């Protein structure tokens, strides 16, 4: 896994890829997934560069899908998570769980 750990948005993107399943994840569906689950206004522009960065780190791999007419005859880049990516997500999950530990759940008033 990456020695520097995952950024928050990188983690969100990897989790979205995991949820969507290999070969179902691409920039548009990832944005939709993050928006639906977190309510955050994720930008496609951010997803593109995050995917490029994750691919450069070897955490995901991509391939071009079949072209479709509504995409002007262009294919989409489908994302698949690599074992290193899975390991990175696990490591981050572990780290967060340890940090969380026995902290009581936060109520709104504590913020």
């Amino acid at each position, binding site marked *: 896994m990456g020695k520097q750990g995952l950024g928050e948005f990188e983690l969100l993107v990897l989790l979205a890829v995991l949820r969507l399943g290999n070969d179902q994840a691409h*920039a*548009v569906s990832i944005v939709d997934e993050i928006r639906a689950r977190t309510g955050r206004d994720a930008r*496609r*522009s951010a997803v593109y*560069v995050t995917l*490029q960065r994750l691919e450069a780190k070897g955490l995901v791999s991509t391939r071009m899908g079949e072209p479709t007419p509504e995409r002007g005859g*262009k294919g989409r880049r489908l994302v698949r998570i690599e074992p290193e990516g899975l390991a990175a997500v696990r490591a981050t999950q572990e780290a967060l769980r340890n940090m969380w530990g026995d902290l009581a759940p936060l109520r709104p008033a504590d913020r």
Partner: protein
Amino acid sequence: MSAPRWARALLRLCVPEPRLEDVLGDLDEMHHRRLAAGNRVSAWVGTSAEAVAVAAAFLRYRWRDRDRGAFLPSLPEFRLALRLARRQPVLNVTAVLALATGLGLSTGAFTLMGAFLFPTVPLPAGDRLVRFMAAPSPDDQRGRMSRARFAALKRDASVLEYLGAYRDGTLNILGEDDVEPVRGVYLSADAFRVLGYGPILGRTLLPGDALAGAPPVVVLRESLWIRRFGGDPDVLGRVLDLGGTSRQVVGVLPDDAGFPNTPDIWMPLGTDALGAEGTEGGAVAGIGLWGFLRPGATPETATARIEALSVGYEQATDGALPLRFRVVPFTMVPQGGLMQALLAGMLSVIVAVLLVIAANVGNLVSARTAARRGELAVRTALGASRGRLVVQLFLEVLVLGAVAAVVAWGGTRSAMGWIARSVDEMPFWVDFTPGPGSLTFLAASTLLACVVAGVLPALRATSDHVGATLRATAWGGGALGRGGAAMAILQVAASVALLGTALVAVRGLDGYARAKVDVPTERILTTGFWVGGRGADSAGTLLQRVEEATARIPGVRSVGVASALPRIDPPAPPVVVESAPGAPEGEARPAPVVQARPGFLEALGAGAVMGRLLAPEDLVPGAPRVAVVNESFVRKFLGGGNPLGRRIRSADPRTDEAGPPLWREIVGVVPDLGLSVGDPELAAGYYVPMDDAAWVYMALHVSGDAVRFTDPLRRAVAEVAPDLILTRVHTLDRAGQENVTALGMIAAGLTVLGGMTLLLSLASTYALVAFTVSRRVREIGVRVALGASGGNVVRSVVGRASLHLAAGGALGMALGAVLLQLKSGLFVFRVPSGDPWVLPLVAALMVAAGAAASWIPALRALRISPVEALRSE
């Protein structure tokens, strides 16, 4: 319906090749979603905004994370750009000259604007320097200041760190054998404590110098010290006769010192200059107040505080005048808002001109780039990204832009230096030297111009859509796409209109400069001076004393004073001639009128053609009202009949008082003496005895070289009126020279702008037609092979170009006609209107030159052999 073309073009430029298909596909997909959800406009806006965001994200990623080299040009690319700049010298020199003109003009306008509107006061704490503006008071007592009020303000105005006063002290240095007028100021003697000026020699003024009974002293400015005393260090202790007061020189200040009115001499503002102690009635006029705000205070808070102090002072003091002041930055320009708007308008027009120039240069660059399609294709095949090619093409324009910027900087510096030298009486805080701000502006405008001239054509040249490139870059398209045709037409129109107007202005100027005034101008010495503010009686007495003293100079034949000189156009209010008794009055028509004293017409060398000239008894109060008319007047207003005894009156609605009309009897006729040079319609005018004047001119008719009488004149006048400042002492043929210079500058400006536009229009016509031909080699070859005639081929090549030239020429003639209609407001004198041929001639020349420019490539098209053409692609 796919995403907007420009959005896709932007992404092609910014997104790395492997990711491009995915990103473009997503863009189309999202655009479809938006179209399904809303209307076309919102879809267009949304998709465009998203494309910008995606492009920015990729650029940021490439810049931050890796791949910095994708943006920074490499050394070999720089070398290539330089090598290319050396090739095609004509095209490059045209582009550089055009860009340099635009850049120089805009940087100059920016520098001028900054000098007036955002000046840096060259004083310590100069940003807190303020002056008091007197608000109008009921009986116009503004600017009057008493010693007690000043002392009260100085004591209690805690918002001010310092409060001082000054009064204009322009006067004559009366030398042993010459008289020199110098600009001077009476300044609070403690002012130098806060101004921070260090003397070159001796000392500055000290508070003790202002005390009653202190010996009178003066501090000189460096330039006066060098001019008058040759920089002699022994000047300290010398006594100067300044307008009748002897003052001892105690110091010399450097030329950098210019507070408050760029004076040549500083004198202490004595405490007695503010009136006698303790009396409010002795308040004196013409005093200006100034000071430094305390840190944190603003002009507004200071105004409020001074207002409160003034009210308090007036309540506590008997007979105090109701005076109100506004505290404003010392550098505030009167009507600053208007001036700001004017300057900003000028700057934006010039920047628009710069952009038009840049777009033209873009056309030239497009044509050049087209010839390198092969090279670009090879580089693409070798793996160069589109961004790289664009950077390369942009670099090539940047090389041209950099050369142009250097030329423009040099030009701006020397132009500003010339302006600073030729405009005197500028406030001391106005600095025309282009500084770091101007340099930054120049750099930014160069970059902007290079983006317009380099990036747009580069995008087009590297576009995937070769067909679109071909269509867009053919004549009428150009670097700016469809707007290009309109621009080409407008450009031709602008050059026709500007050059036509310039030509008319030059002809008018020439007529003005050459107009013969039937007066021996080289033997007449003239000067102008101010006698206002003394009352009509004492001004009259003063003028008589001055005339008498001047007439005693050996060699002076006659002397006279008047309100205007030949070539200096007097006002021309409407005048009515009395008809025969019982007949209706004639029509009121404008005629120039000069107030003159006896002797003036004689000094111009004029004799009475009929009747008599003005005589001393005409000036006596209650004397019959008389006028002397010129010969043109007799012809125009009196039909050539006998004028003597006829009566005229002014019908000026501004000066007409209620009561019976004030008629003047015509007592004499003189030849035409240049009453309104440059405007034959205003040649008919008349002279009346001077009853009230503030600014007057004096004419001396001498025997021999008139210039030699300058010093004797100054000495003679100084003897009877040491405080009278004679300005513009020169021979009559130089009178009105300011008009000629100003108009010459206008005409030169119009000619340069018009010529530049002309050159650019021609260059881009040539470049675009040449480009079209180079793209259509194959087609033309086929057409020739199929038997097309030479005429057909040429028509197909230059057809659209000629159409645009003709349309531009016609529009230019219309524009020029409108400009000439406005000319009376534009020029001081009337320009000849009988030149109907000027505009059509310029338009015809322009169209002919344009046709010639497109003819050369068209001929080249004819020489294309079919075999070669078919082989070429």
